[in-house]
């Protein structure tokens, strides 16, 4: 089996086992980066999104500023700022934090991605919370539910469902944005394609192959989310006959 595969590979110059392993390594890095950023970003975004709907301007305005700045500027600039910026903080070199975390390109990149996706997700959650129908909140209040109980039992469960289509877009956006990691020496999928392009000077083979991989991941995500949406939004579907 493997021999046949090798024979198939030997028919072309570029896609040998070594390059395929290089792509595989890039694939793993991309998935790690995107997955970690999305999970940590969502954990940060949930409280921020809830607090963003607060009526107290001292709570909601700072969050608005954070969201506005991170949504209004390119991710690549945020990445540069964190990647070059952390190295310049006084006395950080030699500390445990620097030696173990920040010196590798992966973590500054992860921080930038997390802050970016958290800003977008905060806005999605805010929108979903604010679109809760008034009647539901009134009913919860009439039952004597406190703010926390209301949030937990009534508002958030339906808000998550409403947020799902927009969040699916954000996941795909994050996957595509993660290609920027290759700019700061990380060998993700795009980084692997760049390496292979420069070694063989074959732009079409290197980039079209990686484009196809991204396309496959995108479609997998779209179908997964559509499946989840069909399940959790089933009660909103128009009745057929």
């Amino acid at each position, binding site marked *: 089996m493997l021999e046949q595969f090798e024979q198939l590979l030997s028919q072309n110059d570029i896609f040998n086992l070594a390059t395929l392993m290089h792509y595989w390594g890039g694939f793993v890095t991309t998935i790690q980066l995107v997955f970690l950023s999305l999970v940590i970003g969502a954990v940060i975004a949930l409280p921020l999104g809830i607090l963003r709907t607060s009526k107290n301007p001292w709570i909601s305005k700072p969050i608005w500023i954070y969201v*506005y*700045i991170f949504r*209004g*500027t*390119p*991710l*690549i*600039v945020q990445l*540069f*700022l964190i990647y*070059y*910026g952390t190295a*310049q903080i006084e006395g950080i070199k030699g500390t445990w934090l620097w030696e173990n975390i920040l010196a590798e390109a992966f973590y500054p990149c992860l921080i930038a991605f997390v802050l970016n996706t958290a800003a977008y997700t905060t806005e999605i959650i805010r929108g979903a919370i604010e679109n809760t129908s008034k009647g539901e909140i009134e009913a919860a209040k009439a039952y004597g539910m406190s703010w926390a109980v209301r949030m937990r039992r009534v508002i958030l469960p339906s808000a998550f469902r409403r947020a799902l289509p927009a969040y699916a877009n954000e996941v795909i956006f994050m*996957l*595509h*944005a*993660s*290609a*920027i990691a*290759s*700019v700061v020496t990380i060998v993700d999928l*795009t980084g692997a*394609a*760049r390496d292979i*392009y420069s070694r063989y000077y074959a*732009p*079409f083979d290197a*980039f*079209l192959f*990686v*484009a196809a991989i*991204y*396309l496959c991941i*995108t*479609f997998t995500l779209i179908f997964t989310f559509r499946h989840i949406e069909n399940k959790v939004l089933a009660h909103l579907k128009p009745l057929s006959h």
Partner: protein
Amino acid sequence: MLDLQGYGPSILGGALLTVEVAILSLLLAVFLGLLGGLAKISSNPILNGIATVYTTLIRGVPDLVLMMLIFFGGQMMMNNLSDWLYTKFEVDVFFNVNEFTAGVITIGFIFGAYMAETFRGAFQSVELGQIEAGKAYGMTPWQIFSRIMFPQMMRHALPGIGNNWLVLLKTTALVSVIGLSDMVRLASEAAKATHQPFLFLLPVIFGFLLMTALSEWGLKMLERKYSAGVVKG
């Protein structure tokens, strides 16, 4: 004004380049988007298929990958084309794919796909009766498009175009990766050279926020213009 250790003027020049790239790609994107949108609502299955493949493929691949494909691959394709032209017709021409063209073409091409979706929705929101009335007046297809379709669909398309424009503006920062000396590249190089990332990158962030704020204001004005005579419920 802002000297920034002598880097100020060149970074400001980079900002102009960013705006230039953004506006040219927007024009290309609107053009492609109109074609794509028209193809998507047409009854011709071939046009329909091409447009669907275009919008699906482009939206499934990261912009950076497409940009590298067009920048690195485009030059090779153009070289092959000039070789072919030389051997076939003995015409000696050379096409140069520089960072600027590659950037504008890629961004225009990508956002053309998003615009096509926007325009498709907007075309469909123009009442069929309006177009029939145009036909009844004996208007040519172009007259129907320019006098009836376009002014009415712009109102529906503007919010979508506005969103696309704001995303496009940020995407222009990617041209710095393929080597165009835009605001982002100049500032990050200055940051690397002087070891003062905050001094150079914070002005870039303000630059983008300023452009975003100006665009939002401009879009509001445009939306007011195209919503003339619409009574909001």
